[in-house]
């Protein structure tokens, strides 16, 4: 009998606490600044082209093999507008296979890829593939969201 009363007292006390949960799709908890979602490609506004040269190092180091990268000659190099001789031609990431491990960010020599805060990729297809436009958009959204400038702390660590 005493135990039941004690339990009720606990229930009564806990009843008036502020809730710690939120209703997910309507309300979201803020993400921490370092949060690692899916990778996105950064845009070099100075030269109006991506930082990525398509060197494929991220593709080779990706533990799940979710990336595909191709490089091409940079047309802006011929006109002298840019110092990059090669530039990314095609970059796809299969976000269904990406495990957000940030290895691609750490092996990148050109600081061209970053972990964005995008992490929701539920969909109707098994392969959620992001191509170049999506990847640039993800990074741009992320920059706009957290107010960062290109160039970040976690690069080149591995």
């Amino acid at each position, binding site marked *: 009998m005493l*135990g039941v009363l004690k339990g009720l007292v*606990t229930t009564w006390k806990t009843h008036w606490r502020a809730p*710690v949960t939120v209703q997910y799709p309507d309300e979201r908890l803020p*993400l*921490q*600044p*370092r*949060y*690692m979602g899916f990778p996105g490609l950064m845009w070099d506004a100075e030269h109006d082209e991506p930082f990525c040269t398509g060197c494929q190092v991220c593709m080779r*180091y990706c*533990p799940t093999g979710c990336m595909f990268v191709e490089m091409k000659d940079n047309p802006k190099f011929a006109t002298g507008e840019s110092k990059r001789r090669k530039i990314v031609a095609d970059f796809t990431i299969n976000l269904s296979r990406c*495990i*957000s*491990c*940030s*290895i691609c960010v*750490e*092996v990148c020599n050109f600081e061209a890829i970053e*972990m964005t805060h995008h992490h929701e990729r539920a969909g109707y297809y098994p392969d959620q593939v992001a191509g170049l436009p999506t990847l640039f958009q993800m990074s741009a959204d992320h920059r706009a969201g957290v107010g960062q400038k290109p160039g970040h*702390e*976690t690069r*080149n*660590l*591995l």
Partner: protein
Amino acid sequence: MTTERALRTVDMHINVGPQHPATHGVFRMVLEVDGERVAGCTPYIGYLHRGFEKLAENEEWQEVIIHLDRTDYISQFNNELCYAMGMERLLGVEPPERAEYARVILAELNRIVSHMMFYGAFGADVGALTPFLYAFRERERLQRLFEAVSGARLMHFYFRAGGLKEDLPEGFADELRRMLPAVQHGIDECDRLLTQNEVFLSRTVGVGKLAASEAIAYGCSGPVLRASGVREDVRRSDPYSLYPTLDFDVPVGKNGDCFDRYWVRLAEMRESVRIVQQCLDRLPEGPIRTPVPRYPHFRVEPGEIYVHTENPRGDYGLYLVSKGGVQPYRVKLRSPCFCNLMALGPMLRDSYLADAVVILGSLDIVLGEVDR
């Protein structure tokens, strides 16, 4: 008229799992039941086998850490610590002091998080669903801290050979100092909620006894071994990192039953809070990485080492063989759950069928680590 034929009994086999909530993952056991008593148990594992050891042979040294996060996916910092220490000893480098302190703080917080997970799941196994919600509320506090530190809630990839990936975030120490009393209070609250509960006591005291000699023979470690009264902890017996300089107790049980295994873990959480408190008081400023070569040049000298740490689940060991290449030659993981699970058969013998779930829950297995 009672004939011999009418009295003849047949043993019944009951299949539990692999998809059964009480098995904490994809574990299957076939119980041989004589009436209500368990006469024998045949465990089947391997449903979550991902070939971690083979994958590690094909990855570069530092990349293997992401797979280690996925072995015991509730105590990632401890796993990473073990592997990072192994690499450092093979390389002959020492991490800077700040990195050591940060590692111990994170590993001990991770122990609290892991034991909270056990607490919640064990309560649910016994039939009390409320503790699960309380445990997860407490756990969430620390998970958000981990997210701020490493950028991920579970798969951190934060410890490296020679230190840490990046420095602790700004205000980490103040935030944690502010949070610790709340964590302590949360542990006390969990303690009050379950430990004195009569139903809980009657389900756990004297259930699934494991004698100390048996626990040692089956290679049990961690809370399972200590509950049987063996005062053995890798942090004390083969000290690593900062543990020789820290003041903490190793709680042990007496009877080796389910309640003792529960109680030891609860007491360990309090010790972890003490350790974190001490580290926080001494946390120095300074560099967080001893420079080691970057990825294409990262090589480890030929040699081999067995390195082990005290994980929340027990003695987590890694046998690393290097042949001087960019990839490890062999990584063998000695998983504590794997060895603790071997003692399940002797523990289940002659217990009630209804207690089987409680006994399995008290081992606190993580199938990602058992199957690797």
